[in-house]
């Protein structure tokens, strides 16, 4: 963090993935645009729904579920996005008092622990997907919402969660590795 720039906040600047996140981090950072756009689309759908219902008395059957889906995948991806950018909220009361050597050790340990946890969750997400993507007889069928419109969003979100948990595990391994190498 630069010491000479008091006015310039990191929250407003698009600083991208941290160098230690490697090539994967840069890809995750770029992919963010898709999901950010999804949030804007969700907003437009909600406005459209209000207008259709209030002005034309003709609500849709798809707006509600589609909005939830777009926001849901953005939430899931947001966790990976923040991991690549190191922008998750951290309580740095102790961390800030450490010297550079200890900080590096902490960075390695934190990334390694998070990698192990994410791998566990990826495994658990696989168990979930195995029920959501396959019928009990083994045939492929995506879990649907069961609504009148009945989109396969639940199945898709579960699969997406599995992919993100797996990517998160890999991202933390990359972070641990690069922190250990001392790469900047």
């Amino acid at each position, binding site marked *: 963090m630069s010491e000479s720039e008091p006015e310039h906040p990191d929250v407003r600047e698009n600083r991208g993935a941290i160098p230690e996140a490697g090539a994967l981090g840069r890809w995750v950072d770029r992919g963010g645009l898709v999901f950010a756009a999804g949030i804007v689309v969700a907003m437009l759908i909600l406005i459209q729904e209000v207008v259709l*219902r209030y002005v034309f008395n003709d*609500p849709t059957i798809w707006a509600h579920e589609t909005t939830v889906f777009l926001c849901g995948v953005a939430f899931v991806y947001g966790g990976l996005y923040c991991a690549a950018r190191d922008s998750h909220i951290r309580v740095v009361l102790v961390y800030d008092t450490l010297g550079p050597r200890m900080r590096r050790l902490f960075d390695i340990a934190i990334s390694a622990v998070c990698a192990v946890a994410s791998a566990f969750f990826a495994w658990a997400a696989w168990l979930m997907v195995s029920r959501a993507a396959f*019928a009990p007889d083994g045939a492929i069928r995506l879990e*649907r919402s*069961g609504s*009148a419109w009945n989109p396969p969003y639940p199945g898709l979100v579960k699969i997406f969660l599995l992919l993100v948990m797996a990517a998160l595990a890999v991202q933390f391994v990359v972070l641990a590795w690069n922190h250990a190498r001392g790469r900047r």
Partner: protein
Amino acid sequence: QEHTFRFQSSDPAGNPNFQLQQQWAESVAEMSDGAIEIDLLPVESIVAHNETQDAIAAGILDGHVTDTSYFAGRDAAFGLIANPVGAWSAPEEMFGFMEDGGGAELMNELVEPYGLHFIGATTPGLESFVSAVPLEGVDDLQGLKMRAPEGLVQQVFAAAGASPVNLPGSEVFTSLDKGVIDAADYTVFSTNQAQGLHDVAPHPVYPGFHSMPLVEISMNKQKWDALPAELQDVLTQSVRDFSRAQVAALAEADQAAVEEAKASGEVTVHDWSDEERAKFRSIAQGEWEKVAQRSENAQKVYDALTAYLESQGLLN
């Protein structure tokens, strides 16, 4: 206790249905002389209401007390058997189908592949329809902005010409009050009255014509199979007793609430004619057929259901 089972309900802790379900859990302990203890948890305490099936199969939960329609996304059959909109005019008709009409066997055919055993069915009863405008029949549903939960209920109302709106239950009161919606599929009359819905929507249709959810009590199949036969019988019997007790308790509460509402002079209770009810049922039947095409199991449910209704002279 020899057996301790953790069940999750689809009702929140403060709900009257949850309190009745707790009495069921206590009755099981009594009827089994303490051999079975059921620890009943409110909705969402372990997993979400529509994730309990997986959790039971995985051994995280042992069982659930839940509206079967939450699993309609896994197999359309669950949606159809849980709430064949318009089919039942009284809880006893549904219990008849479940206990003597092959319904229980069918339910087990549906849930066993998912690792569950269906013990029995109950229901909070025939729901009352909440409306801010007078409704005398199907024609009045045209263009009616109404809240309906996702699923067959929504589909049938759309087919009847209404404009269903998706809203969480907690938003129903404000939305009726502010006129975002004119009517709502909510719950039984007494609860609607207690929550003040009739203050903002004084034209309830009671008895309802549209919805009577099947609440299933099921548990992990392996754990069920491991129980001695006499304890299995105790569980099955306890659910039968409970379903009658729940229906009686809620019907009594409904009756008292209807008297109270009528006495207030502010509420007009509308009762649809048999003709209008039949008209709505025939629209609903058209939708059952569509759902039946979504899966083999759904077709099975449709066939069993129509055969039973016909045998009882309930189908026109």
